[in-house]
């Protein structure tokens, strides 16, 4: 059976962005689709892909659809992508009345009822899809009438094939390191799924997809894939694309040993937590020695109250210490910082700016607090009626549009600019004294 997959990732980079814009959104492969493709191919199906990022516009998409004789179409969607997915499906059905449309991915899992209401979607797979998607394809091939809503079965990670890197055009990812300056070719991989922490700007959405238990691939499995990637793409740096790569210190220690033993010295980048780094500085050291070049750390805020509000379970001191540990071991720091949390005051934002100054990150990635669908905080702010984002259109975190009511975004923009340019305390204080744009405090609801 032939399936055409559609990767809708144009929400951030836009159409015609693949290899044309230097951002990762425009160039990275989607591991979800690639994994499903690998599973489908292993079961004897054939798969091809329409990557919207490589098309000119919707008309071009329409032409691509028209060109194919495919009957079964599979799409994945983040919440951010959902409007484009809806539009793509509509065009699909305009062109192919008998098309069978399957939607999976994060948005289908956390906003199932919303997706169910869209009658143009024929089948919806929630959670992990490697097993269920293949089963569904089998049923369709046998012209059975499968269920519309299918809850995906979670696979054992070592038992599924490595992701299908032939599905995507790899040249984009290979040429686009996560951080400019990391040596290319560059690749990404996932070592596991799930996260045991409960930061409420994310959870429980993550758990809704991957379940309560964290699953890690065996170190051998990951190293094996890396060896394959080395052979195939001659990569010179890579990224562990996990939400949190360093979760289990025993796993990480063993990984470092095996990575070195396999002769790898290639630098890599991964996501870390400040508290774990403080608790296991020796593991951080070991990772640094094995090749960890960049740590992406979710510092989030310089205010303890905000960290607690997020249930981040880290402290400001840990943030600073983690940065110091990185400096000590020569790991570059990619700081993820969030501005404009609900109830956040100007003083707290200024604390965060000061923290950034102290951390002196090698890369600062700032974002506005965004009520991401499926997260605890999103439900909270929706209940209080504070969100300004379209039900799913606004889950883009980057600071260019307003997310929350009663928040002085003009002021926040200035604060963020100050965080970037390392200005003086005096300017910060002056900033604190600017008049409000909105009448309320920064975020008025409590």
């Amino acid at each position, binding site marked *: 059976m032939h399936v055409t997959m559609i990767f809708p990732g144009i929400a*951030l*980079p*836009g159409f015609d962005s693949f290899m044309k*814009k*230097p*951002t990762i*959104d425009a160039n990275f492969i989607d591991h979800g689709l690639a994994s499903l493709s690998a599973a489908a191919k292993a079961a004897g199906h054939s798969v091809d892909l329409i990557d919207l990022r490589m098309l000119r*516009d*919707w*008309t071009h998409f329409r032409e691509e659809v028209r060109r194919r004789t495919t009957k079964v179409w599979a799409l994945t969607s983040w919440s951010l992508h*959902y*409007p484009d997915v*809806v*539009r793509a*499906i*509509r065009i699909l*059905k*305009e062109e192919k009345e008998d098309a069978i449309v399957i939607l999976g991915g994060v948005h289908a899992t956390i906003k199932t009822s*919303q997706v169910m*209401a*869209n*009658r*143009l*979607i024929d089948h919806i797979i929630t959670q992990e899809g490697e097993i269920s998607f293949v089963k569904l394809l089998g049923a369709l091939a046998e012209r059975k009438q499968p269920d519309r809503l299918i809850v995906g079965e979670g696979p054992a990670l070592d038992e599924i094939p490595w992701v299908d890197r032939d599905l995507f055009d790899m040249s984009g990812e290979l040429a686009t390191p996560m951080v*400019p300056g990391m040596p290319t070719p560059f690749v990404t991989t996932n070592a596991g799924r799930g996260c045991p922490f409960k930061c409420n700007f994310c959870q429980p959405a993550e758990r809704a997809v991957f379940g309560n238990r964290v699953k890690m691939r065996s170190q051998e499995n990951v190293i094996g894939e890396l060896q394959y990637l080395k052979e195939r793409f001659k990569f010179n740096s890579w990224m562990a694309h996990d939400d949190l790569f360093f979760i289990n210190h025993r796993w990480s220690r063993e990984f470092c040993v095996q990575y070195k033993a396999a002769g790898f010295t290639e630098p890599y980048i991964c996501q870390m937590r400040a508290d774990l780094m403080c608790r296991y500085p020796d593991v951080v050291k070991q990772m640094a020695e094995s090749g960890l070049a960049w740590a992406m750390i979710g510092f989030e805020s310089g205010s303890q109250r905000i960290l607690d509000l997020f249930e981040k379970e880290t402290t400001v001191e840990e943030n600073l210490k983690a940065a110091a540990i990185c400096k000590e071991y020569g790991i570059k720091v990619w700081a993820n910082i969030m501005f404009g949390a609900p109830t956040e005051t100007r003083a707290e934002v200024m604390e965060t700016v000061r923290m950034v100054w102290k951390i002196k990150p090698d*890369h600062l990635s700032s974002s506005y607090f965004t009520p991401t669908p499926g997260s605890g905080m999103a439900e909270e702010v929706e209940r209080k*009626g504070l969100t*300004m984002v*379209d*039900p799913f259109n606004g889950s*883009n975190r*980057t*600071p*260019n*549009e*307003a997310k929350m*009511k009663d928040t002085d975004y*003009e002021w926040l*923009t*200035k604060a963020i*600019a100050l965080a*970037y*340019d390392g*200005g*003086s305390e*005096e*300017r910060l204080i*002056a900033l604190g004294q600017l008049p409000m744009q909105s009448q309320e405090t920064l975020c008025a609801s409590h």
Partner: protein
Amino acid sequence: MRIALINSPSLSARPVSRSMAGGLGFDGNEDMLLPPLDLAIMAATLRQIGETVDLIDADPLGLDPAAVYARLEGHWWDVVVGTVSLPTLDQDALFLAELRRRHPAARIIGKTLVRDHGVLRALLERSAADLVIHGEADLTIADLVYGRGTAGTAWLEAGAPGTVPSFRFDEGAPVEDLNQLPFPARDLLPNARYIYPLLGTPVATLQTSRGCPYPCGYYCPYPLVEGVKWRSQTPERIFAELKDVVERQGITKIYFRDATFTLNQERVARLCDLIVAAGWRIEWVCETRVDCLGDSLLEKMREAGCVGLLVGVETGDEQVMHLREGKKGLTIPMLAHLREKTCLLGIRLHFLLIVGLPQETRESLVATYDLIQRYKPDTIGVTIITPYPGTALHAEGIREGWIDSHQYKDYGGHQIPMHTPNLTRADMEAGKQFLEEGFAILQKRQVGGHSKPLEAMAQQHYEQLLRWAYHLDRPVAQLREVLALAPTLPQPRKQSSATSVPLPVISLARCSLSVVIPTYNRRAILRKTLLALMSQTFASEQFEVVVVDDGSSDDTVAMLRQFKAPFALRVLAAEHAGANAARNLGIRAAQGRVVLITGDDMIPEPSFLEAHATFHERHPSEMDAMLGFIDWSPEIAVTPFMKFIVSAEGGQQFAFHEVREGKADFRLFYTSNLSVKRDLLLNQPVLFDQDFTYPAYDDVELGYRLSVQGLQLHYNAMAVTCHHHEITLAGFVQRQRKAGHMAVVLARKHPELSRTYLKIDDALNSRHALGEAQVARVMQVAQELEKPDLQQLALIRSGAERFDRTYLQRVLHPVYQTLLQSAYAWGICEAVEQGVGAIPSVIACASPKPRFKASIVIPVFNKLELTSQCLATLASLTTMPEYEVIVVDNASTDGTAEFLAALGGDVQVIRNPENYGFAVACNQGAKAARGEFLLFLNNDTIPTEGWLNALVDEVERHPDVAVVGSKLLYEDGTIQHAGVAFSRIWFSPYHIYKGFPADAPVVNRRREFQCVTAACMLARREVFESVGGFDDGYRNGFEDVDLCLKIGERGWKIVYQPKSVLYHLESQTPGRKAHERENSKRLLARWGHKWWLADEDMIYVPDGYAYRTVTKQQGIRGRLEPLTDPEEKRRWKIAADAQIAAQRQDLSALKELLARVEEWPADEWVLQRGAWVCRWIGESNLAEGFWRRVLSQNESQDARIALARFALEQGQVEQADSHVNILLSNHAQQGEGWLLRGIIAMQRQEFDAASLAFQKALDYGGDPRKARMGQRMAAAGLGQSEGAWTAFSEVLDRDPDDAEAAHWLLRAGTMLEQWEKLVGRLQRFLSRNPGDLSLRFALAGVFLRLNRWAEARHEYDSIRLLDPAFDGLSELVGAIDENESVLTHHHAAR
């Protein structure tokens, strides 16, 4: 003696870089710590004489005051010196006072560069210091600590007991020869801790020159502190110090702290050579001016290790830059070139910018912002203008009351101690912030690539800046903002009910939606719409869709029947009867409680239905309806025109910008995205009125009726539907025309709407209705404008997107606006003609505020009879747009006041207590005006029929025209004004074609001028205001010229419109010409330097006339002569073309035309002009030909002088002499001629004759400086060497770079055998002008005379390095060698 030199601690309390701001101190931080060079030099001087010195630089050592005290504790100190900076004055005074307390026996000395007496006095009083050093004490410090001298210090002298101590100030003298300075005692400094952001650490500083001669001293502290005289070290001296730094201290990062490091480019080139030859790998940065940097020098500097340049750009506004107070000499192209060059060479560029120069405006800050974004400096430093005491800025600031803070703690460069005429302090702060944020974004984009959010952020930021700069309240149709305005939350309800918990699931029984879609022949798009309704987040069980087919012929019904919809789809097929009939049918058939009306080409977004349903769930009242947002479909190409019609300026479709606080009025009752309770609709006797045969105003009409009943139309941006309809200009013009028809229908039904909303009356005014042919023509224009070579234009300004926007707003939108308005008016007129409905006469509805097309401003002073005649004529004319009259009475005494008081109607009268003059009166009138355009009219005019229409028409049809002038006639019907030309001989504007018959073709053409008269002048109000109106510095003359030039300078056009005719009884007002001389002077001062304004030939020659100047007894007169001879015409055309090229500043074309001198017309004055132009554009060699031709026309003093000069320059003394002879024989009292004669005599060594000639030159007004110089030279020639020596010494003291004087001094010195004195003089000259090889050669000769062989050899080496082929070098070295060998013999013998 034991002496402590302390760079006072500041870091803990208020970090300050003490050596910055020319040494006055500048706010700093830990990232910038620079060594105290002044203290280190003093330390070196003191150590040379054997004193014990401790040098404590507190900040880099991390010492706070307590730690410094602790370090001093336990030792005996004879002298303690502490530095004092302006921003930290108080803190430093306290520090000194504490030192005083702790070391009562020591002399406590403050060291500062502040010279202001008041400040110094306060410092002395507060610190109780014995002395404050304010001058350059590098070499005299020993005298000061021993108490032997007071040069460059200030102190308090106690008088009689009980009296206030008197303040004493010793001016001191700057160090003349910086080569004498010892190397700073760097070994006493914590060198490893010095850091400079552009270089890192450790960094050493060198100051190789002091002083700055540039006029930026208006605000810059360097000239204030170091003087305007530039003193510098020789390359060799610098190199020696560098060697010490690099080889002994091991520091390889150098920051040259000179104000203008490359002022003498040869000096730096030589230094670079030395550095390269030394083979060091050093990195250095320096501060300099863009106009002191040649390409080859830059390359050399890079080779020698220059990695960064700090250049003072100050502002991006070239106009501000070029003012005396700005950065004269710098131009943007120079900067662009430097940026390019530095990029290639890998030199980092740091822009020093200032916010708040006195002429700066918010707009000029936009220019600075653009400059940063465009030339992408590697780093920037933005300071706020600071009125350092002693600067001209400070004086002016005090005088004008600009300075808001006199506390020096606010003078650190980042505080805002003053405002300016154009900027408030808040503006400065905002401006600085914009620049810095903009740069931060720029850097982020450059480092992190151009991601979508970052681009959006950058754009948003730029928009913010523009909004701020141009005082725009709201951006043009920023839909995002409208979106942000939309409420989604339940407002506090009027009746509190128990249903406050929103229900996620909406039950069909309680709120069922019926979507009503009328359709006609749109099968494909309708299918898309239905598919989109299938992919809603709202459950399909909860709504129905009613499609009413209005008799389509494309099988729509068949498609609908086959459509498998998950929701209830009901299809009603009807006979074709129009959309309204279909819609009404659908509404009646609908079953839901709420009817959602939309179109067949409206493709809803997924949350569309949910948003509507949720709204009605929360607003159960029948009177609450909801309007959603309509966007363009992403699947169609949205043209600028489509954007325009939904924008706030256009607004012909979907005027969402009219939404206020979440509510829309009936005008936004759009049937594309609207939900209303069904019961309310069914209660209406008429639903959508089928009298509207075209879909325009039908929805508004129903909306109006409902709103009268109390309907509230809420707006919710969450309900988005996408209009899938490509709209063309031509199609929409037709639509507007039909809308005009429908407006008439609506006006018939609701006459109260006809004036305010529908503007029927406006439209019926014939001026609006262009008629079919004209509409078609304007449409062609618009279509042409839609496809300009935008790309090429965008190259001119970087940032294509921004340019597009400007282009759209400035050019295209006004054209669209005109076109659509005309089409609408055309439709209305057509409908009225066709009798679509009788328009009821204007309903008596109070118009809120009278708006006039034009405000006629008439300044008057006496001459009542003229005023009344003018007003009476105005009132009697019939075809006029709406206008008001404002009479400004300049204190008339002849009953004018009473007459005006008796006037009624729309006449405003402003009465002044005295005669304020024309400009003030006009400005007053303009301020009071309420009309769209301003019309300035003299009271001695008599307007004729149609005069105003013609003017208004002109500006309305030409969006680029700002000023229009009329045809003015004398009483006898001849031309008084048909435009203004600028004379090529004098810079004077005059009326062209005066006295020509009124029907001459040349005065009946619309044409552009640089200027028209204000006797009758229409001006765009916003443009008039933007240039500040008339300049009241003129008194009744040239105000109009100045205004027009100001407006023209901003790119607006000024047009003469002969269709507007008035009689002008010129200059009837008493005293009108009383100030002509002052006015001319002012005009000249303001505009005189713009020689290219002269335009008379480019006006006359194309008309077939030559403007010849003839000399008569009364003086020079101009005469217009028809150009009949084709050859003659061709010649004149060249002169005219040259004027055109000059105005366009097209230098290459201009040069080409000037080079064809032989082809120019044989007119003395034209040729003379050509010669001057050659000189102005720096092509003096081309001038000679012009002068020769002038001479061939007529004997001319100027030509003789110019030619004599040429001859002299080329060494043809005889020829020069003959010119001068002729000149002097005709004009014996020609000072300039005598000067030339003197020079010629000097060249012939006839010193007596020369002396006489120079004396005559002096007597007859020749250049006195040159004449005196000449006299001295002659004296020197005559052997009067003593006098010559003193005279030339004086000249050199005044102008130390005068090479001629130096040569003459050498001559005199040689005669007098003043060898020692000559050495000093020549060395000083050469230190400033190291490239003058002949004087260097002379110096070597003088050294030889003095038997100073080594020094002679040094000079020889220098010359050989700079020019190995220099004439006489071998003889020089021969002489040196000979003597040296003799010397060696002597040594050997001893």
